[in-house]
């Protein structure tokens, strides 16, 4: 049963006021969570698509005042109507709430609200007056009462936040509209500074991010998303081209501690970066002789040149962070010893063990049977994993599988196949990567699953596969592949590379007590604060979530750094307002792909120049050539700057 009194979200009016609660019509296009913080019941939402009202004791006029005051505070000042108009609106509403309003004020409000939303330069002005217009239309009697009462309305309790669809979708919440605008205006260094407020690896992420931001880019509704990833890379490349080094400002916390980080991957490096900026002493223990963790092992040089990764890790080392390479925790040094020496420990060990396919022959130690991560690691360290083999079958549909096939040509494998049990549509790998692999003439076998690894004299000679068809959707929403009986066939090959997933090597936890793990073999921590049951230990990245995106690992590093800093300073580790808004926006979607935007589109995304497939498939040189300054500025100009404010009444 719905408990929403009124909703105008997205212009769809549901008005339950005066009805029996049993007859309440439900609101289908937005979900208003019950609580903001645990003890804060949400009474109403005022936002870019309208009003959602749950409680009758919210004064709509006062909520309008609060909302427009917030919009005004967040206005960038770059267009007249939003900058001055929202100020006039906020002052007018304040006057009304103080009991000093007149009927002329209402016509000022409605006229300005229309002009501002119809013609502001960006979405903050376009969306800001929307709920006020709804309020004036559907709560006219509340306004009339406020004008006639002559007493002041007591102000409610509200919490507001500025967001944007891209920014909300980004796991680390980069201020994307801001840095894109910097690039548009030619302020490239400032763009990089904006990125570095949260993310220390712009060059890396700018090359390999899975870019949730672009999938939530509002421009997609008009034509195509802004190429945000390439713009990020451009900002990082500019600094490199100028041979400049970033300058970091250290703002030390009151108490500084010793922090150990296990794993120099994206999560570990990001955590180190943020803690170093607060003056903590940090030691990272890294199993490999190289920074980057899975991004060093798993991502080939043609996508992420090694010097970029080393360079950005090097900048973090220059901040005073020590990285002990070739040091395996649990073997070279025990976790208990690290625990004794440190005030906090961040476990960011990644997920690097290959998941078993559960087919016959995979556990026989055949030559030519090489797990995906191992295969990539060998190639990335400059070795051909199995020079004798020439025909490769990679099993899986993720980015690791795609990296394995694309790398194969580059170590002179002549026949490269990818076997995936669903269709191209369900493939989790980045569609751009899939296209690139197709262009390089990888043979894709969709709706195919391996059933047996075939070998002669201890060497792989082929893989038996079975045809699949798609059945009913499973938990992930994707249709479950079902084998077609009797459709078995054999692909001749001498290398089989399973790349269907990775699991976490938890052996370093041996000898410690209190760190819980989940039934999926991941480390169990509070999903927001990243703290484990054993207070001193934090964990994040792939070892917390299972194999995920690089940027998600970085986000975990940032969150853990905040938690660790608070712990060292004796502050409680709890959800802050931003964390609560994260959860809130998960329910109230910031991006609505069905939104109608009444603007002219027709400006397609700019893509990077690429080496031709025939050349690139045999080289580890970087395939994508970055934007020129002119291209970057033109691409940044496509941004609609979709900032928007949400105000929650509690």
């Amino acid at each position: 049963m719905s408990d929403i009194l009124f909703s105008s979200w997205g212009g769809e009016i549901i008005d339950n006021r005066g009805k029996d609660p049993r007859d309440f019509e439900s609101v289908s296009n937005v979900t208003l969570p019950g609580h903001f913080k645990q003890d804060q019941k949400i009474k109403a939402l005022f936002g870019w698509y309208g009003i959602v009202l749950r409680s009758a004791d919210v004064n709509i006029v006062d909520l309008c005042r609060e909302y427009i005051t917030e919009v005004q505070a967040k206005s960038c000042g770059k267009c007249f109507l939003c900058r001055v108009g929202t100020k006039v609106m906020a002052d007018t509403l304040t006057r009304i709430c103080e009991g000093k309003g007149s009927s002329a004020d209402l016509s000022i409000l409605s006229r300005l609200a229309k002009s501002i939303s119809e013609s502001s330069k960006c979405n903050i002005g376009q969306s800001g007056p929307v709920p006020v217009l709804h309020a004036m239309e559907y709560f006219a009697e509340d306004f009339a009462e406020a004008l006639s009462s002559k007493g002041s309305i007591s102000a409610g309790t509200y919490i507001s936040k500025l967001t944007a669809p891209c920014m909300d979708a980004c796991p680390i919440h980069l201020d994307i509209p801001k840095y894109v605008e910097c690039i548009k205006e030619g302020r490239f260094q400032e763009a990089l500074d904006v990125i570095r407020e949260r993310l220390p690896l712009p060059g890396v992420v700018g090359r390999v991010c899975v870019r949730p931001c672009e999938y939530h880019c509002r421009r997609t509704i008009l034509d195509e998303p802004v190429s945000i990833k390439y713009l990020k890379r451009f900002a990082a490349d500019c600094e490199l081209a100028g041979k400049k080094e970033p300058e970091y400002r250290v703002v030390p916390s009151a108490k500084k501690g010793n922090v150990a980080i296990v794993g120099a991957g994206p999560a570990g490096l990001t955590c180190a970066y943020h803690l170093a900026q607060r003056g903590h002493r940090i030691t990272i223990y890294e199993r490999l002789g190289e920074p980057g963790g899975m991004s060093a092992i798993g991502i080939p040089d043609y996508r992420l040149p090694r010097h970029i990764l080393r360079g950005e890790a090097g900048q973090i080392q220059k901040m005073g962070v020590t990285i002990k390479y070739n040091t395996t925790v649990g073997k070279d040094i025990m976790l208990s010893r690290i625990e004794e020496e440190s005030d906090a420990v961040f476990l960011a060990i990644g997920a690097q063990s290959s998941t078993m396919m559960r087919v016959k022959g995979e556990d026989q130690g055949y030559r030519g049977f090489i797990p995906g991560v191992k295969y990539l690691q060998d190639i990335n360290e400059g070795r051909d994993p199995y020079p004798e083999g020439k025909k490769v079958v990679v099993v899986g549909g993720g980015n690791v599988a795609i990296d394995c096939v694309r790398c194969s040509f580059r170590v002179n494998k002549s026949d490269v196949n990818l076997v995936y049990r669903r269709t191209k549509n369900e493939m989790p790998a980045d569609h751009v990567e899939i296209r690139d692999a197709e262009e390089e003439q990888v043979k894709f076998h969709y709706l195919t699953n391996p059933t047996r690894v075939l070998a002669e004299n201890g060497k792989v000679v082929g893989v038996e596969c079975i045809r699949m068809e798609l059945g009913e959707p499973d938990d992930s929403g994707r249709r479950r592949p079902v084998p077609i009986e009797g459709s078995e066939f054999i692909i001749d090959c001498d290398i089989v590379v399973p790349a269907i997933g990775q699991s976490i090597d938890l052996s370093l936890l041996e000898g410690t007590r209190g760190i819980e793990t989940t039934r999926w073999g991941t480390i169990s921590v509070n999903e927001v604060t990243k703290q484990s049951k054993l207070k001193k230990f934090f964990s994040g990245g792939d070892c917390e979530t299972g194999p995920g995106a690089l940027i998600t690992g970085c986000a975990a590093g940032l969150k853990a750094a905040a938690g660790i800093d608070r712990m060292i300073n004796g502050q409680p580790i709890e959800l802050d307002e931003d964390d609560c808004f994260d959860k809130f926006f998960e329910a109230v979607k910031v991006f609505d792909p069905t939104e109608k935007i009444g603007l002219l589109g027709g400006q397609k995304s700019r893509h990077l120049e690429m080496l031709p497939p025939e050349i690139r498939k045999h080289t580890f040189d970087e395939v994508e050539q970055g934007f020129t300054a002119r291209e970057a500025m033109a691409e940044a100009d496509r941004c609609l700057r979709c900032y928007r404010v949400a105000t929650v009444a509690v």
Partner: protein
Amino acid sequence: MSNVTLTIDGIEITVSKDKTILEAAKTAGVRIPTLCFHERMNPIGSCRMCVVEVEGFTQPMAACDTRVQDGISVTTNSGQLFRIRQDSLKLILVNHPLDCPVCDKGGECTLQDLVFEFGIDKVEYHAPKQDRLSEYATSLIRYWPDRCIMCLRCVTACREIKAIGAIDIRGDGYGSQVVSVHPDKCESCGECLMVCPTGALTENLSRYKGRPWISERVMTTCTYCGCGCQLELNVLNNSVIGVTTRDDAGVNRGSLCVKGRFGYEFIGSDERLTKPLIRKNGKFQEAGWDEALALVAGQLSKIKKESGPDAIAALSSARCTNEENYLFQKFIRAVIGTNNVDHCARL
């Protein structure tokens, strides 16, 4: 670039598809009001005066930064557009002082013209006076913070045309303002004041010397270096009271450096030499041109005869035009007969 055909206020027009609606309208002979738009810069989009309607699209769009598309039908005037344009201007007037009688820009102010065009005789919107810094100024450029409408032409020109970026917008919402973010980078080139559509940036030297429309504008070439920038001397009663530029003239297209823009007061200086001087008995004495030239010619001939042409060296000035410099070196080489010739800009 391929072409597209669209209609603007019923006029069908074919333009290249990389054009904006504003550019297409200009080609079609349709005037769309603008305030922040400036031909030499990328569209700024701060004023929203150029909003137009496109059939089938609900949101009015800024013509300056919306590209044309094939088959669209654009309307440049309607009740809605008039209201938006009026509101935009009214919101400027919430703060902009009506000190037109003493403003340097009075008479050639875009804001003044637009307020007149849109018949704004009262403003029903009110907001407290803006508390702005007036630090953005140099000894040559004066900033009037109250008059600034924040169209951001100055900021854009400083960044895009001059690639300096000394000024930028800071602060949020109503409190945002144009400030000097890198005062050390400012060279007082005056690009900002040249593009300012109101009297928010004025030249500090020529205040109260004359209204803009009463001076005569004489197009000439800047004498400071060999670039040959074109400028207009603003002349009143046979004295120069200011320098302006035209966006369509010369290699500079409206830009000047600090010297070209502000270094004109020497023209009317009492200390300026207007007659040749000859040193006689250790003292400079005024002489006529014939006497002075005869002396120089005689001395040069004498030195050449006695010591040969290579005893003579010549140095010319960047203050001369290219043509004058050409003639000078020709004279030294062909008439005097030496290659000992150089130019101060090389030193």
